[in-house]
């Protein structure tokens, strides 16, 4: 197993002996996952960009783990030379969501940070352009947080045309109209049973 992952294992070794507290492991061919404490992220990112030639910030995501009351920030870096994708993950507290910006390393990180400021309510210190990006005059809690119920919000604010209240399965409506017995497979998958 180790013979065709030379590149990946070499990178993992390098990461381990510079950041001892980082847990770096191999997910599959040309994918490595690195978990870090949140205050190690900025030094790690500039180290990865300048020394490990991860020069492309392919993706910057944020996952809301509401159960353990944390946001998980995921930086996905890609190195063109070694053709490796590094998924760098860290956890920050969900209540007072604060993090430092990486705008100086990659310019496009500013757009990601603007979106997460609006969608999750994370305040990125150092990014002076956290203005309105997608939503206009939004007064509710940041919408992408899992405790925001979009169905509830849309019911309150938007007029919905009558006739879709129970979101009934079309097959049931047709069979009820034509008076036949509802076939078994329709019962098994009827939407109402799922809810």
């Amino acid at each position, binding site marked *: 197993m180790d013979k065709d992952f030379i590149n990946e294992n070499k990178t993992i070794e390098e990461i381990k002996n510079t950041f001892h507290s980082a847990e770096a492991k191999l997910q*599959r061919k*040309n*994918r490595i996952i690195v978990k870090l404490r949140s205050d190690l992220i900025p030094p790690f990112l500039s180290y990865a960009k300048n020394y490990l030639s991860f*020069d*492309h*910030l*392919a*993706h910057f*995501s*944020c*996952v*809301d783990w509401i159960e353990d009351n944390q946001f998980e920030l*995921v930086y*996905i870096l890609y190195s*063109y030379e070694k*053709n490796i*994708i590094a*998924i760098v993950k860290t956890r920050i507290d969900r209540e007072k969501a604060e993090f430092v910006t990486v705008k100086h390393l*990659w*310019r*496009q990180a*500013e*757009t990601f940070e603007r*979106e997460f400021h609006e969608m999750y309510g994370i305040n990125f210190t150092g990014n002076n352009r956290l203005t*309105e*990006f*997608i*939503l*206009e005059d939004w007064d509710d809690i940041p*919408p*992408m947080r*899992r405790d925001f119920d*979009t*169905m509830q919000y849309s019911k309150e604010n938007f007029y919905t045309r009558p006739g879709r209240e129970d979101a009934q399965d079309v097959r049931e409506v047709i069979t009820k109209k034509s008076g036949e017995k509802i076939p078994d497979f329709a019962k098994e*998958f009827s939407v109402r049973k*799922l809810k």
Partner: protein
Amino acid sequence: MREKETTLYFGPQHPGITGNMMVKLKVAGDTIVKAETHVGYLHRAFEKLMERRTWMQSFPIVCRICVPEPDPNEENLARAVEEIEGREVPERAKYIRVMVLELSRLAAYFLWMGGQSGTAGLYTVPQWSVGDRDYILDLFEELTGGRIYHMYIWAGGVRRDLPEGFADKVLKTMDYIESRLPEYDKLMFDNAIFQKRAQGIGVIDKDKALEWGVVGPPLRGCGIKHDVRKDEPYEVYDKLDFVVPTYEGGDIWARAMVRRKEMEQSISIIRQVIEKMPGGEYYNKVPTPLNWFVPPGEAYVKTESARGEFGYYVVSDGSLKPRRVHVRGPAYVHGVSLLENILVGANISDVAMIMNSLGVCPPEIER
């Protein structure tokens, strides 16, 4: 004496804008001093909706993210779920997927050709190219039932097998399209005025391109040879031979020539796929699609769409519904941070040209 600066709203309602976004330009005379992209006009909160839908239900919604080219979205989500669950996709389904991806790339390039020359003022090319694109949409209609949104690729393979006699219909369409390309060369690519309008405008400098996150044809237009189909071959791209064309200069003209050469590559890929298509199963059946528990895990997959590298980061927490699906299209970087920097110093009449050449597709920026 500094010229008086006026603010010009290249607003959401503007014939030059591809889609529905706004670029706020500070203009001195005819040159742009400062540009700011305002998006959010097409925000439907895909990721929030997908957290409320089961895995199979999120496939029809996912292809609505990017309008000119929906198939990379479906293929990305399918491959991400397969990677998390470790579901094996039969060989035939992989070949069909590559054919669908390349056909949708061709259709997206023809639409781009219409947009690029339409903003330059050559109104004959959009008529021809969108008309020819319809031949490809007819193929899609026969294969998947839908012209633009196909909802054809899903976790485990494809939804149905190729209909009777579909393969030689595809070959016939490819011959027709290949015979049409010289026409477009004469009318658009070799047109002296189009070259004058395209060369030396909207230049991305080469050594900054990688760091700014430039991907796809704009990157290959700067002379850097990178293509997801070659760097990290997915589906069966490693079994097909094709060339990744690059062009020097980083301006609108270079990006146009890269796309022009990639059309020929796509046609040859489709022909190879039709030749090497094996028989057998086309779908590794998901037991109960609406009651499907994907094991916990995460996956980052990317495909090469017509405008660049399309990345999906999918996290599953073992429940019926995805924990998080984060879509990152090429236009997310091209349309906001890159566009704002290239537009500075450009002429007003080139704003629409630059946006078209970067492939800025607003629904992808704010999903």
